């Protein structure tokens, strides 16, 4: 172990970037993009760091990649939104315990012209069927992220066969939420996005929320410390401390207090555990 440390410190000092200076305590959170892109961390993390002295470094990638990275022990805490995958992660022994953290909802945004005529609908299955029938363009994440998994499940529930539309009206961008919104808006396609990303997104052009309010579009976020039995390198004490703070009264109040343009983006619900 000391040998490994020696090599590690030598390697660190060899890199000309002195920026690798050791910080007292810092943890890495493997996170979904929506929480980062919406600015939530920029608001939350300074509050937590002031209180605890622990620096939280966020790697924001799609839920699929975040889980994979955490399985490889490249993170101390997982904060994502795909409950079935999260439960599998814990069952497989990669994480210690999953806790509900907060929620918001998904919405379908579309152009003013509304080619499928779905504006104002609240039944998401019906809306998706209409989009498919009209053959109106729909831009999907297509990246195995939490949002993508949710979207595919909704199409299945609506009984739409995506295979036949793929590359035609159903366009899989294979990229993050923001990139997919940019692409979708560029081609005049409908896009399903989490509300937080949408509210803070700044390239809306003539797009607005057209389908919302269906219970099926509920979007639950969970937090899971990475299991030190699987990954000995995990800083479990600090990771657990941050997880505990997030679900504590102070953390939950801070989440609720975060607003963009006067709108609350995330709704804490940890107490419901």
């Amino acid at each position, binding site marked *: 172990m000391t040998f*490994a440390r020696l*090599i*590690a410190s030598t*390697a*660190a000092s060899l*890199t*000309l*970037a002195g*920026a*690798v200076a050791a910080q007292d305590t810092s943890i*890495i959170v493997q996170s979904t*993009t929506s929480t980062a*892109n919406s600015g939530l*961390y*920029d608001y939350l993390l300074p509050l937590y760091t002031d209180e605890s002295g622990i620096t939280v*470094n*966020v*790697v*924001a990638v799609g839920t699929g990649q975040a889980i994979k*990275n955490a*399985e*490889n*022990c*490249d993170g101390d805490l997982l904060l994502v939104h795909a409950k079935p995958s999260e439960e599998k992660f814990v069952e497989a022994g990669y994480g210690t315990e999953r806790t509900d953290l907060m929620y918001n909802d998904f919405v379908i945004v579309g152009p003013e012209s509304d080619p499928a005529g779905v504006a104002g609908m609240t039944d998401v299955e019906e809306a998706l069927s209409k989009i498919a029938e009209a053959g109106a363009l729909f831009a999907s994440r297509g990246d195995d992220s939490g949002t993508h998994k949710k979207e595919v499940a909704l199409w299945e529930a609506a009984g739409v066969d995506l295979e036949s539309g793929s590359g035609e009206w159903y366009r899989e961008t294979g990229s*993050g*939420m*923001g*990139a997919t*919104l*940019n692409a979708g808006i560029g081609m005049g396609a409908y896009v399903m996005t989490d509300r937080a990303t949408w509210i*803070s*997104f*700044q*390239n*809306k052009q003539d797009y607005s929320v057209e389908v919302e309010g269906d219970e099926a579009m509920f979007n639950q976020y969970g937090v899971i410390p990475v299991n030190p039995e699987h*990954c000995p*390198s995990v800083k479990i004490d600090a990771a657990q401390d941050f997880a505990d703070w997030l679900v504590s009264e102070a953390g939950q109040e801070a989440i609720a207090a975060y607003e963009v343009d006067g709108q609350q983006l995330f709704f804490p619900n940890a107490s419901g555990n």
Partner: protein
Amino acid sequence: MQDIGEAFHLALTLVLSGDADLFEIVGLSLQVSLSATLIACAIGLPVGALLAVSRFRGRGAVLVMINALMGLPPVVVGLLVYLYLSRSGPLGFLGLLYTPGAMIVAQTILIVPIVAALSRQVLEDLHGEYAEQFRSLCLSRWQSITTLLWDGRYALMTVGLAGFGRAAAEVGAVIIVGGNIDHLTRVMTTAIALETSKGDLPLALALGIVLLVIALGVNAGVQMLRMSAAKQASYGAAANV
């Protein structure tokens, strides 16, 4: 289109207001890419020089391979470096992933072939001019290489700049191995990717403009170094006469 005008205005405002975050990101970009360029030159120039003066079986194949590696996709390099540096990978114990060190490693791998391939071409041409002289002086291979590297130093600066340009401009590798972590591994290109995904196109473009200006500054700096050195050399030569 109004985004572009807004971007120029924003770029100017960011720079003039001394935006601390911006300077941190610019500083890290320079630190990472310049380090990678220096290391890549330390590896690539000797390799290029050795290839320039050596003749061996399979040399053609080696040259084709190195030339082809100039087209290494950054995202593939990023992925490979990630797999090695990941905690579950063979070099995971180093704890380099998500540090500037990992970004330097990735960019170095990306540009070593560029430095080696371009310097090989430059030095081989130079060697063509010098070959007879070298033979008459009975120089060893080592002496030939050091002479070529020294006499070709101005042309090799351009080779270094090509490597730096590639390193500073890529985003695919550093976003995977660095993780684009705020105040730790966020550099210009990953910040631009992030702002684009937030839909803040004017800010993304403004950062792009700043990046271009930095590249311009580095190139101008090297050019000035080159000119003043060339001037001194010609004075020196004149004095010797």
